[in-house]
C-alpha cells in the first residue's frame, strides 16, 4: 500500500488579503531607512548614512515590531526590507529575526557592503526564504566608486558577496547601467552567470526614476543625465531579439488594457511603510496626499484606505486623457502615477521620456509604425496577433 502524504508544498499566490476584494497579500514593503552608505549618482531615495535628522525621525524597533506583527496578522507572507540600505539599522538582525519568527519571509535589498560574518551566519542559519537581491555598481573599483561616490565601497561590497557565497546564502545580483560602468556590461553578465541562483542575465536598471520625495532639483538633474536614450535602451533590451520578442508577445497576451481614465490599474501588493511610519500605495509613490500614518492607525486601516481610494481615482489632465488613457501600451509603458508624481508633482501628467522609451520598443516589435503614436492605433489587437504569429513562426 502506498504511503499517504499529509504535508504539501504550498504556493501562497492563491491567498488574497481579504476574500474577493482585497489586494494581493504576497508582500508588504518595509523601508527601514532612507539613509544609505552609498551616494549613488542615479539614486531616487538615498539620504546620507549619518543624516541625524532622518535617523531621529525613523521608526524605532518597537514600532517596527508592532507593524510586522500586524502584517503577519493580516496574512502578509513576505516583507521586503529595503531602504536606503537596510543594514545601516543597528537593529536589523533583531527585526529580521522577529519577522522570521512571525512566519514571514524576508526579501532583503542590499548593496552587501555591511554584510559581516555575523549577518551572513544569521542569513544562513535562519534563511530569509527569498533570494537576497544585491545591487552591483561596477566590476572594478574605479567604476564602482565613480557610481557610489564612496572610497572603499568596492572592497566592502566584494567582501560582503564573498561572505554570502561562503555561507551559501542564496542571492541574485542586479545592476544599473551608468556611464562609469557602461563598458563592463558583458563582464558583469559573465560574472553574474557564475552565481548558481542566476538563471537569466541580470536585470539592469537604466531608465532611472527621479526622486520620489521631490527634494532636490540638483540631484534630479543629475539623475536625468544618467538615463540612457530610448534608442540606446532599446539596443540593450534587444541584444537577444528573439528572446525579447517572445517575452513581449507573452506580455501583451496577458496585459492588453482597455481605454480607461482610471489612474491605478497596476496590481501591486498591499503597499509600503516608509522609514517614518507612513503607509504609501507603493515603494515609489510618495504623494503626501496618499499616505496614512500607521503610528496613529492600524495597518489594516491603512491598506483598506489606500486600496479603496486608489481604485476610484481618475485622471483629469487633458493630455493624459488624450494619450495615456487611450494608449494600448499602458502597462507596457512605465508611465504610472508614481512616475508622474516624481517628474511633475501630479499623478496624471504623461512622462515624455517614458513615452519615448515605450514607443521605441513598440516600433521594434512592429506594434507602432514610424511617426505613429500608440494612442492613435485602432487595430492594436491585430498587431499583437501579428507579433505572436511572428514569434511562433521563428
Amino acid at each position, binding site marked *: 500500500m502506498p*504511503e*499517504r*502524504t*499529509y*504535508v*504539501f*508544498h*504550498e*504556493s*501562497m499566490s492563491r*491567498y488574497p488579503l481579504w*476574500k474577493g476584494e482585497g489586494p494581493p*497579500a504576497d508582500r508588504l514593503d518595509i523601508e527601514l531607512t532612507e539613509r544609505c552608505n552609498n551616494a549613488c549618482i542615479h539614486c531616487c531615495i538615498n539620504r546620507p548614512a549619518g543624516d541625524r535628522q532622518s535617523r531621529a525621525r525613523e521608526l524605532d524597533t518597537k514600532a517596527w515590531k508592532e507593524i510586522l506583527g500586524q502584517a*503577519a496578522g493580516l*496574512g502578509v*507572507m513576505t516583507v521586503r526590507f529595503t531602504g536606503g540600505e537596510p543594514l545601516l539599522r543597528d537593529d536589523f538582525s533583531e527585526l529580521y529575526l522577529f519577522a*522570521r*519568527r*512571525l*512566519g*514571514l*519571509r524576508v526579501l532583503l535589498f542590499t548593496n552587501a557592503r555591511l554584510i559581516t560574518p555575523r549577518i551572513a551566519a544569521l542569513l*544562513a*542559519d*535562519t*534563511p530569509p*526564504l*527569498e*533570494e537576497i537581491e544585491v545591487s552591483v555598481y561596477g566590476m572594478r573599483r574605479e567604476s564602482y566608486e565613480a557610481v557610489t561616490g564612496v572610497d572603499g565601497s568596492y572592497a566592502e561590497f566584494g567582501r560582503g558577496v564573498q561572505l554570502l557565497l561562503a555561507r551559501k546564502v*542564496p542571492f541574485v545580483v542586479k545592476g544599473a547601467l551608468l556611464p562609469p560602468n557602461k563598458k563592463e556590461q558583458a563582464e558583469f553578465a559573465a560574472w553574474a552567470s557564475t552565481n548558481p541562483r542566476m538563471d537569466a542575465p541580470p536585470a539592469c536598471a537604466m531608465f532611472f526614476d527621479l526622486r520620489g520625495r521631490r527634494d532636490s532639483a540638483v540631484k534630479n538633474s543629475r539623475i536625468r543625465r544618467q538615463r540612457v536614450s530610448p534608442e540606446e535602451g532599446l539596443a540593450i533590451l534587444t541584444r537577444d531579439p528573439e528572446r525579447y520578442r517572445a517575452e513581449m508577445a507573452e506580455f501583451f497576451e496577458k496585459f492588453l488594457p482597455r481605454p480607461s481614465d482610471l489612474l491605478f490599474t497596476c496590481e501591486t501588493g498591499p503597499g509600503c511603510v516608509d522609514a517614518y511610519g507612513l503607509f504609501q500605495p507603493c515603494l515609489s509613490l510618495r504623494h503626501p496626499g496618499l499616505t496614512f500614518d500607521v503610528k496613529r492607525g492600524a495597518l489594516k486601516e491603512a491598506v483598506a484606505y489606500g486600496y479603496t481610494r486608489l481604485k476610484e481615482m481618475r485622471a483629469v489632465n487633458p493630455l493624459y486623457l488624450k494619450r495615456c488613457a487611450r494608449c494600448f501600451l499602458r502597462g507596457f509603458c512605465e508611465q504610472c502615477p508614481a512616475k508622474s508624481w516624481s517628474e511633475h508633482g501630479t499623478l496624471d501628467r504623461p512622462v515624455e521620456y517614458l513615452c519615448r522609451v515605450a514607443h521605441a520598443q513598440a516600433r521594434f516589435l512592429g506594434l507602432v509604425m514610424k511617426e505613429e503614436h500608440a494612442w492613435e492605433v485602432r487595430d492594436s489587437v491585430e498587431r499583437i496577433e501579428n507579433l505572436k504569429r511572428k514569434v511562433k513562426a521563428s
Partner: protein
Amino acid sequence: MDMVFSHSDDVVSREIDGALIIVPLTAGVGDMEDDLFSMNETGTEIWNLLDGKKTIREIVDALAGQYRADAGEIEADVSGIVKELLKRRMIVEATAA
C-alpha cells in the same frame, strides 16, 4: 503510543484564510530554501493536537471519539503524519524539546 510530541522550534505555523501554513524558520527544513507547507484537513487537526501534552494514544482516542471512525484507520493516520513531521523536523519529542 505513549510518546508526546510538540511543534519544533525549526518551524512557525500560521493560519491564513482558514488554512494551516507551516513556514520553515531554520535552515534545512524544506527541500529548497523557499519552501512553505500546508496540510490536508486530517493533518491540520492532528497538528493542532500535537501540543506537547497529549500522548499519541490520547490523540487517537480523541479523534476516534469525535469521528466514530475505525480506530485502526485513525491510528494509521496519526502514525503516518507523526512520521512525516518528524522526518521534516516539524515536530520533536516533547521530553527532548
